[in-house]
Each structure stands twice: as structure tokens, then as C-alpha cells.
């Protein structure tokens, strides 16, 4: 039996013949998934990125170690420490910028959420290293020149590069303060972002100072290599954060085609353009969307695709959680859209098992809806659990039921308040719904509290952490 889907972006898969009674165990050919990109996307594995960053830090340490002169003199000890911490801080700033350069191979392999978390964690280390560098350098100079700390500070600041680096440090401190969770919650996104852009100026000011350091300035090749590292990161930033989005905007000419209600406070936005297939967006990925209309153009927000790309059309499903998302409901057809991406690693490439459990909470259904339709597999291989407070809060229900029927996939709506007496995400409840749960890959997407609770339950139910795939921006 085939099912007519109500949504234009859901095209039922090829009909499957009804099971024959005399051949109950015969394997059925799995439904044909939509055409995959012809050339696989490049992906840098998270482990490789970690190894690369650690190797770079090792190289920087080696650069210092080969040139440092052992001595028990106090000024030498201070200066040696200052140079090591300064080098590592300079390298750290470079890594932080690289993580946010939106290089596709890194974004698709590591995942934007992991990158953001590492960027946030690395920022704390870098600020610590800069503080240590400043204190050690000041003490070293004071001891070396037999001056008090204030005189030494004044003397150091008379050097243009050091004054520039001090200004850069002040900018980085401002970035750090505004990124602290308690402060960021009170700031508008645009304000936080404007302050964050100051980090680019800080990096440039710091770079000038680094070239004067004895470890870098000691040799022409070292200076050139250090400059090359900075120049490459700058080129990547300009290319992937400016050139690529502008080129994509001109090439694809994306515009809002339709806005439709999906449930209480939830709308789907259909965006159509030219050659959208060339964006090579995979189910489970997201774009950063900027709608060019009053009140929305200044901010680009990430929304996952809630359907595979079809007929040059992208679809996102958005829940009104703030001013910006509320305005999305009032978008008119024809509104120009700038989309950068695709980003994210919550895609089929993470799958390691035949059986897959998709576990969605609230509007977290959006990327999983796209995966539910497209993940390759036969009947019974894919299960979707959708947690929502009540039936009215379930979005895309008809589509999900149609996909489940077509693929013979299991679909369960787990309804009830999050503080109810029965927890449908408890390990036993999950095992009741999915008896061989430990044999599954789990894709998880939902509100942070739900995702944390579900992860803990899955772990207790025997699913290894490496097989729980989720994207979590809350801890970034």
C-alpha cells in the first residue's frame, strides 16, 4: 500500500510489495534512498584535528626549546617562561580562528557544535597563557633592568608592538567576558558578535608583537613560516566567511517560496533557488540563514534542513523562541535569503551499525525528519522516537507517519510532560520500545536538558558513547 503524503517535499518512496505469507523471512530490498552526492564530501575526523593541533603545539614548544638558553638567573627564567607562554598563546589564537573559519572539511567532519565547544574551551586556555606571558615578561624586564614594576611596564609599553599587543589583549579580554555564559545570556546576539569580531583585530595586533619575539625573529625562515601560518588562516577566513557566502548568494538567488504553519508556534519555510543541488547539503545538516527583510537581515541563525533537498528547494522548520524566530513567521514569499553552509556532522556518515534509532525532542525533530526519510536501510532498521509534551506539539506528524509506512520503520510518539511521573526516556522504557537498543547507532537532537537526560539513559541502557551522535551547542 502506498501513502499519499501531504507535504510537497515528501515524495513517497517506491512502493514495496506486501510481504508474502510463504516467505516471511526473505529479505526485502531496502527502499532506494535519494541520490547521494557524486563526490563524497571531504571530512576531517575529530581525532585528526586534535592530533594536528597537539602536533602544532609540540612544534611551537620545540621552536622555543631549541633556542632557549638554560640559566638559573631570575630574569632569564622569567623571560624563558614569557617566551614559551607567548608563543603558545599566539599559536592558540591562530587555532581558535581556524576552528571558526568554517572550512567545509572541518565543519563536516568534526561538527559545528564540537568546534564551538573547543573554541570556547581553547579561548580560556589562550587567555590564561596571555595573562601568564604578560606577568612573566613584566617581571623579567623589571629584574633585568633593575626597575620597579611600574617603570618596567612603562618602558615596555613604549615599544609600539608591545603597546599594540596590550590593546589586542584588552580586546580578547572583552571577548572572553562577553562570552561568559552569565554575561552572554544578557547580551543581544548582535552585540556579542560585534565584540567577538574584535578578536580578529586582536590577532593582528598580537601577530605584530610575535614577530618581534626572539624565537620568531631569530631566523628569516621562522618568520616566514610564522607569517605563513597567520596568512593562511586569514585567507581561509576571508574565503569561507566572505567570498563563499557572497558567491553562493549570487549563484543560487535563494528566495522564500512559502511559509506554512506546522503547529503551535512552529512554521516551515520553503526556500527556492537556482542550482541548489550544488550546495551538496546532506540530510541532518544546517545552514546559517539571513533573511533580507527589516528586523531579520542583521542576524544569521542556524536552522537544520527538515527535508532533503528536492527540486531546488530547501526547507527549514522553525519554532518561535525569540524575537528573531517569531519574525520568521511573517516572512513573505519572494524575500531574498542568504544561506551559508551546509554545516554540521549529524549526517549518515557517522553511522556504524545497520540499525539506527533517531531520538528527537521538540523541534529537534527537524534534522532527524530528513534522516528518517533518507538513511539507507530495510524494514525495521530505522526507528524514530519523538518526545513532545502533547499531541498538539508534534510537528510534521503526517509526513513522519507516511515515511514510517513507506519504509516500514518504527515510529513512536512519546507524549507527556517532562516532569511527569513516567519518564519515557528512562533506560527501561527505551529498551521496551527498542529491545536491541545496544545494537543501534543513536542520532539524538532535542532541547539541551532532554538531550542530556536521553544521553545518560542511553548510556545506562548499554549504548556506547561513541554510537550516540548528537549536536549540542548549549555547552559552547
Amino acid at each position, binding site marked *: 500500500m502506498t501513502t499519499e503524503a501531504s507535504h510537497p517535499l515528501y515524495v513517497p518512496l517506491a512502493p514495496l510489495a506486501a510481504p508474502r505469507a510463504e516467505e516471511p523471512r526473505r529479505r526485502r530490498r531496502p527502499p532506494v534512498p535519494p541520490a547521494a552526492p*557524486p*563526490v563524497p564530501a*571531504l571530512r576531517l575526523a575529530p581525532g585528526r584535528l586534535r592530533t594536528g593541533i597537539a602536533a602544532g603545539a609540540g612544534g611551537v614548544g620545540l621552536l622555543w626549546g631549541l*633556542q*632557549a*638558553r638554560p*640559566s638559573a*638567573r631570575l*630574569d*632569564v627564567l*622569567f*623571560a*624563558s617562561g614569557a*617566551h614559551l607562554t607567548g608563543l603558545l598563546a599566539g599559536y592558540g589564537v591562530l587555532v581558535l580562528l581556524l576552528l571558526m573559519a568554517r572550512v567545509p572539511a572541518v565543519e563536516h567532519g568534526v561538527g559545528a557544535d564540537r568546534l564551538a565547544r573547543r573554541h570556547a574551551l581553547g579561548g580560556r586556555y589562550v587567555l590564561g597563557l596571555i595573562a601568564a606571558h604578560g606577568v612573566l615578561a613584566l617581571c*623579567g*624586564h623589571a*629584574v*633585568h633592568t633593575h626597575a620597579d614594576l611600574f617603570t618596567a611596564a612603562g*618602558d*615596555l609599553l613604549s*615599544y*609600539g*608592538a*608591545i603597546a599594540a599587543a596590550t590593546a589586542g589583549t584588552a580586546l580578547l579580554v572583552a571577548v572572553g567576558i562577553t562570552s561568559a555564559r552569565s554575561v552572554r545570556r544578557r547580551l543581544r546576539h548582535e552585540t556579542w558578535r560585534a565584540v567577538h569580531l574584535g578578536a580578529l583585530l586582536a590577532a593582528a595586533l598580537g601577530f*605584530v*608583537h610575535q*614577530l*618581534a*619575539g*626572539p624565537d620568531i*625573529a*631569530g631566523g*628569516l625562515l621562522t*618568520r*616566514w*613560516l610564522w*607569517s*605563513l601560518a*597567520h*596568512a*593562511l588562516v*586569514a*585567507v*581561509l577566513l576571508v*574565503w569561507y566567511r566572505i567570498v563563499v557566502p557572497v558567491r553562493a548568494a549570487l549563484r543560487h538567488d535563494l528566495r522564500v517560496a512559502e511559509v506554512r504553519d506546522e503547529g503551535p508556534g512552529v512554521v516551515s519555510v520553503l526556500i527556492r533557488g537556482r542550482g541548489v543541488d550544488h550546495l551538496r547539503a546532506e540530510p541532518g545538516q544546517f545552514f546559517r540563514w539571513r533573511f533580507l527583510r527589516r528586523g531579520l537581515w542583521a542576524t544569521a541563525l542556524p536552522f537544520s534542513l527538515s527535508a532533503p533537498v528536492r527540486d531546488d528547494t530547501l526547507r527549514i522548520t522553525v519554532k518561535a523562541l525569540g524575537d528573531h524566530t517569531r519574525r520568521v513567521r511573517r516572512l513573505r514569499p519572494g524575500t531574498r535569503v542568504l544561506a551559508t553552509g551546509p554545516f554540521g556532522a549529524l549526517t*549518515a*556518515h557517522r*553511522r*556504524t551499525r545497520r540499525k539506527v534509532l533517531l531520538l528527537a525532542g521538540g523541534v529537534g525533530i527537524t534534522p532527524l525528519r530528513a534522516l528518517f526519510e533518507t538513511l539507507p536501510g530495510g524494514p525495521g532498521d530505522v526507528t524514530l522516537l519523538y518526545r513532545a509534551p502533547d499531541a498538539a506539539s508534534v510537528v510534521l506528524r503526517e509526513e513522519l507517519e507516511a515515511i514510517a509506512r513507506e519504509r516500514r520503520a518504527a515510529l513512536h510518539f512519546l507524549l507527556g510532560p517532562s516532569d511527569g511521573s513516567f519518564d519515557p526516556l528512562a533506560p527501561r522504557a527505551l529498551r521496551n520500545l527498542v529491545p536491541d537498543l545496544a545494537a543501534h547507532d543513536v542520532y539524538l537532537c532535542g532541547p539541551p536538558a532532554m538531550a542530556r537526560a536521553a544521553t545518560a539513559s542511553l548510556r545506562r541502557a548499554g549504548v556506547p558513547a561513541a554510537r550516540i551522535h548528537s549536536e549540542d551547542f548549549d555547552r559552547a
Partner: protein
Amino acid sequence: MRRPANATRTPAGAPATAGHGAPASPVARARRLLAAGLLGTGALAATLLTATVTPAAPPAPDRPPGTASSDVAQLSRD
């Protein structure tokens, strides 16, 4: 899902163009061109930076005299 180890092998009797010396796909060629372009631009920028940025710095106590920092800078300050 892992790709089978023999996924890139040329099937028996298949034309030789499917093997190692096959022409790169347009996407792969574009990727290589982009990487070369970005690297070249970076190298050019690095060369300019190396040649033009020579900031001053105080003498470094942990280095032999005369080796620290930019020569020009040291001469101008010491």
C-alpha cells in the same frame, strides 16, 4: 558506514581509465585548484609580511646579546 576495502579497485575487464591514472573529476580538480590558490595567496601574503613587518622589542635576557628580536629594532632602541 565504512567503504569496502576493494571499493576502488577496477573490476576485471573494465577499461583502464577507471584505475589510478584516471582523469580527476571536476570536483576533485576544483578542490585541488582551490587549495593551490589559497596556499599561494597565503605564501604571497606571508612573504610581504616578513619583508615589511619588523617591529621593535626589548632585549631578551634569555638569548645571547645581539640575537634577540628584530636587528633594526634593537639598534634603534639599545
